[in-house]
């Protein structure tokens, strides 16, 4: 169930957007911030508040990579796998995370702390290699900085 606060946020989005559907993506961001991911039940709730059919909501959720259709860990580690990061060690970072945490691409640690996802370009090629931890960018990452970061994230 969405929290009362999340419901209120989504309600308010209706009046600040031209149509209820144009409030859908902001509403899904709000719902995911509240729930951590977008279960079928959460998607139904968002649809109910905005008066949108379930299939419309699901169609949008499944199109955008930032909307999670499965539970994710507390820290979602998104490593860029594209050209500029690859040229500066991005793939090594991914291997380092995999080995340290014992999870492959797309998996979550059994304690629910970490999810690893390899992603396409994060738009930060000048400071490659780049990793996102939830909403935060970590740039110019070295293996040592990566090691420290993983220890600090509890």
């Amino acid at each position, binding site marked *: 169930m969405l929290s009362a606060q999340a419901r209120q946020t989504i309600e308010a989005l209706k009046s600040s957007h031209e149509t209820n*559907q144009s409030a859908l993506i902001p509403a899904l961001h709000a719902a995911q911030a509240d729930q951590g991911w977008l279960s079928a039940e959460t998607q139904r709730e968002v649809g109910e508040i905005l008066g949108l059919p379930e299939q419309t909501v699901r169609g949008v959720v499944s199109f955008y*990579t930032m909307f999670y259709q499965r539970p994710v860990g507390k820290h979602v580690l998104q490593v860029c796998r594209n*050209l*500029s990061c690859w040229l500066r*060690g991005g793939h090594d970072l991914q291997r380092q995370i995999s080995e340290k945490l014992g999870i492959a691409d797309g998996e979550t640690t059994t304690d629910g702390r970490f999810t690893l996802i390899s992603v396409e*370009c994060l738009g930060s*090629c*000048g400071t490659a290699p780049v990793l996102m931890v939830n909403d935060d960018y970590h740039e110019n990452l070295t293996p040592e900085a990566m090691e420290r970061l993983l220890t600090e994230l509890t």
Partner: protein
Amino acid sequence: MAGANGNVLTKIVHLPGSETIDVYRANGGYVALPEALKKSSDDLIDMVKRSGLRGRGGAGFPAGTKWGFVPKGTNKPVYLCVNADESEPGAFKDRLICAKDPHQLIEGTLISCFAIGSSRAYIYIRGEFAAEARILNAAIEEARRAGFIGKNILGSGWDCEVSVYRGAGAYICGEETGLIESIEGKRGQPRLKPPFPAVVGLFGCPTVVNNVETIACVPHIVTRGWEWFAGIGTERNTGPKLFGLSGHVNKPGVYEAPMGTNLRTLIEEFGGGVPGGRPVKAVIPGGASCPVLRGDEIDIPMDFDSLTRAGSLFGTGTPVIMDDTVCMVRAAWITARFFAHESCGQCTPCREGAGWLQRLLWRIETGEGEEKDIDTLLSVTDQIEGNTICALGDAAAWPARGFAKKFRDEFLQHIREKRCPFGGGSHS
């Protein structure tokens, strides 16, 4: 941010607090807006046309001409969408403006709205740029308190609202009609054109979609004049430009230089050359969709027309530099994987073709390829190109074809030796 060096678009980005309205105004900000409000819409459009400003999002379409397509005297609301969905591998210049000089973007947005008869702008920013979205939102509130956004702006009787719309992870939303669909709350699947967005765009209304850097040029054209802007750069490729260097250079980063600056100069003087003094093997000049240049082809002015003449594309002006340790088949495969992943799935040639290219390249890279695969690859690119609703199909086809043609010998070596001669590349 490394390398931000210019005196126009990046003039203040190195200053502490550059994202605040106080620092922006102390450095000549919000002088252009009141000047623009004294002009007519036609004068502003004419000014931008004469400046020669071409869209900085990749296509290089003349911005003033695009503005001129909005029907005069329409009784529908007119929208401006600022495209901050910077997502193509290699491109990272717009992020600098959003993070370090958001008021430059907002002032440009307001002037552009006034010019096209709009009172409503959306800045569509990729979802991953959450920090930049927060910075832009804070700047919008500052501008509102200062009387630059809202009702009766600076006593002109003109109202304008600006808001940030966060995407949620989809490269295709940088395509202008994909972006419009996304703001409408839909899957970001591009529309068939015509009708063009200037006539039927957001919510069925006339809409202009411009890139962040394009919009950021506008206040400078107003204050310094179109003649000044047109005097920078090369013929038909005018103005200052943000170049983003990444990959194998000593000093990656965003650098401001005139349009038409030589690519070798950018790499050697701005980027500080290749680490270890290694040779440049290849450069993707302007984002992953642009066909690769060989190391012996980099004495070239970085502008739309020169790159097109050389059989490549200028794109967003953001070169990715690769030294002699890099495997070209793997680079091609990484590029193909990107476009296959980002294809929205509407058009069969793109949806199926991009995946096919990815699989063929992987086969060659892993030593399973046959010589006929190169011809199959080229034939698939021919069948994608021009056969899709939007340019993503072309964007998948061009680089694959470019790598296969420019580095055919290296492709053949993979096939004959049944392995990657680079051991998957030192960067596998």
